[in-house]
């Protein structure tokens, strides 16, 4: 009889393995943010003294900062002391090949539709997988190494290339920049590091999949990309997360540095758990992304497709320091149910003949609230600088909202700033027209949405664009009629 019970217990316990929460042993830091936690994280990662000091400065800055109050949504209360600031899969082993990676981890990726084995085989895409914080697999490394390209986890960069990290970390987004940047500086877990040497054109799209897995674990990724003189790199960031009951805070920092004649293209498809119909349990995505066009003729281009998260709050920006440098921002942000997006960009024109282009497409459905907030700043030395901003909003239904907050500051008479904005609704006439050609309403909306967002989707690398298109359709399923 005892045997029977054992068997039943075994089966009952087994069920859990197939649940959506991946059952991997975690090494989790005790909740709370204080010097002890920071020292714990730093020690866990065997970091050098200078980095620990930098983290501690971040912690101090965090203590001095207040939560901003200018955002166009009600800030949910966040108890920073309730969050655990570090989680890493327990095994400290380094993986030489995928075979050594925990099969359950690989299964999770499969579930999310990220078959790593396939990804690996996919020509031209190197994937650096970040699973809760620590990078567990890096592919294509050898090939990139031949070209002198460094593409690794942030932690590895700290160990292998401390001089580069020390020189550039915090140089674009200082630890004191804002409260979330300070939090990230103090408690960042891991992230990605890219260095493209002079004159090298990175032959493949570099791609990282981020994923949040441990309950109550904030994600504080830090990404640093440096494109040396005359180099080029295209970087993709894609995110998914499983269902959760409790809100999760995500406060990443991304820093891009483009030297003379260099170009960085940074693409994001963000699809984190947006919460249930009533907005419970979604992820807060408070990210600081900024790039600097340091050298003349350099270019930084941000493309983002934002469909997930309960609250998305971010402004990928470009500091146009080098003469003739170019900054671009292409964005599609979708909000439905009770989702909130307050996103846009900042273009700081400092150098002469600098150019910037902003194309923002907001889509609101259900009770979603979508705000575009943008700052275009023309400095006193930015002779003949030019900006073009196009800011479109599409409404589905009559309970959603679209808001636009453009800020323009010009200290130079020769600078030109253009701003265009439109708001439209998906018309019943449009849907009926497509119905009459045999297309059902669901597909009709998907067609209309993809047409609307085309200008932005076209900026994404091919495979990513196809995924993003599907994502938009799936996201808005059931939004109409």
């Amino acid at each position, binding site marked *: 009889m005892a045997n029977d019970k054992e068997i039943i217990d075994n089966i009952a316990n087994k069920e859990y393995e197939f649940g959506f929460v991946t059952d991997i042993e975690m090494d989790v830091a005790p909740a709370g943010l204080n010097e002890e936690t920071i020292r714990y994280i730093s020690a866990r990662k065997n970091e050098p003294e200078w980095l620990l000091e930098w983290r501690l400065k971040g912690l101090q800055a965090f203590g001095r900062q207040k939560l901003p109050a200018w955002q166009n949504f009600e800030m949910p209360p966040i108890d920073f002391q309730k969050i655990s600031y570090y989680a890493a899969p327990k095994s400290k082993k380094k993986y030489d090949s995928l075979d050594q990676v925990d099969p359950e981890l690989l299964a999770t990726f499969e579930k999310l539709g990220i078959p790593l084995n396939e990804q690996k085989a996919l020509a031209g895409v190197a994937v650096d997988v970040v699973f809760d914080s620590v990078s567990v697999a890096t592919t294509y490394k050898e090939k990139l190494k031949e070209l002198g390209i460094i593409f690794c986890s942030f932690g590895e960069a700290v160990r292998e290339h401390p001089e580069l990290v020390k020189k550039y970390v915090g140089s674009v987004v200082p630890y004191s920049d804002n409260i979330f940047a300070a939090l990230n500086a103090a408690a960042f877990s891991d992230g990605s590091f890219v260095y493209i040497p002079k004159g090298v054109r990175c032959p493949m799209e570099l791609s990282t999949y981020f994923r949040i897995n441990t309950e109550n674990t904030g994600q504080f990724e830090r990404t640093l990309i440096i494109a040396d003189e005359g180099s080029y790199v295209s970087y993709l960031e894609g995110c998914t997360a499983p269902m959760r009951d409790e809100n999760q805070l995500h406060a990443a920092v991304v820093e891009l540095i483009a030297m003379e004649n260099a170009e960085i293209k940074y693409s994001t498809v963000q699809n984190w758990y947006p919460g249930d119909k009533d907005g419970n349990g979604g992820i807060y995505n408070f990210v600081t992304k900024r790039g600097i066009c340091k050298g003349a003729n350099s270019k930084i281009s941000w493309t983002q497709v934002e469909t997930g998260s309960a609250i998305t709050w971010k402004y990928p920006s470009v500091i146009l320091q080098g003469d003739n440098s170019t900054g671009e921002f292409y964005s599609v942000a979708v909000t439905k149910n009770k989702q909130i997006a307050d996103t846009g960009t900042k273009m700081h024109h400092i150098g002469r003949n600098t150019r910037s282009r902003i194309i923002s497409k907001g889509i609101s459905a259900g009770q979603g609230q979508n705000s575009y907030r943008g700052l275009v700043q023309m400095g006193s030395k930015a002779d003949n600088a030019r900006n073009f901003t196009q800011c479109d909003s599409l409404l589905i239904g009559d309970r959603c909202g679209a808001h636009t907050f453009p800020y323009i500051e010009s200290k130079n008479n020769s600078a030109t700033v253009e701003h265009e904005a439109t708001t439209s609704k998906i*018309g*019943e*006439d*449009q849907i*009926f*027209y*497509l*119905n*009459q*050609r*045999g*297309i*059902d*309403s669901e*597909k009709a909306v998907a*067609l*209309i949405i*993809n*047409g*609307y*967002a*085309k*200008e932005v989707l076209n900026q994404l690398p091919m495979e990513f664009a196809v995924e993003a298109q599907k994502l938009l359709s799936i996201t808005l399923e059931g939004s109409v009629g």
Partner: protein
Amino acid sequence: MLIIKNLHAEVEGKQILKGLNLTVNAGEVHAIMGPNGAGKSSLASVLAGRENYEVTEGEVWFEGKNLLEMAPEDRAREGVFLAFQYPVEIPGVSNINFLKTAIGEIRAYRNLPPLDAKAFLQLSKEKQKLVEFDAKLVNRSLNEGFSGGEKKRNEIFQLAMLEPLLSILDETDSGLDIDALRIVSKGVNKLRSPKNAFLIITHYQRLLEYIVPDFVHVLYDGRIVKSGTKELALELEEKGYDWLKEKEEVGTN
């Protein structure tokens, strides 16, 4: 193919169709004429299933099926095509991509395998030639920035691509100059076959010089008050609609 019996319909509480009867067989071209506000375009909208039109009485059978019970997209998939009087613009969606989606949906409904890219392209080229549609417009966004004439010609191109059984042309001639009218008519004539039928809604007899109908019906105050052959159109052109109104009023009295 199409049997309309005692059709009553209203829009926003206002009675528009008041007992309309009409039978259309395969291979036939019917013209519906009548003065403004008679319910011509409403008839087209009701047949296509536009949401704000409510059928209060009567029946519509299409190929033996109850058309009124079907969703608009299913009516289209069964073979009902409406060439719109005012085709809408859909920015960013290419004409060709839209047609590919439409054909894919219609074929799936009919349990046909999807057309491969090559076959689709070939079909598109063939039909462009047939209805003299400008190749440049094929890849542009659907109707975006098209002239009135281009939009109407796009409707006929779509008609050619989708090969419906019943095509309803809702004032396709309005806003067309004489050359465009000729091209559109030529296209329609080429698409006529013993298997399909056309319901041509028009205000003027002019279009019927190019597309010669088998039957002409006069729609007045929500009902067909007179039916005849193409000669009726000429008579209407000559006398206008007033004599019918008088007759109708006498009739109802």
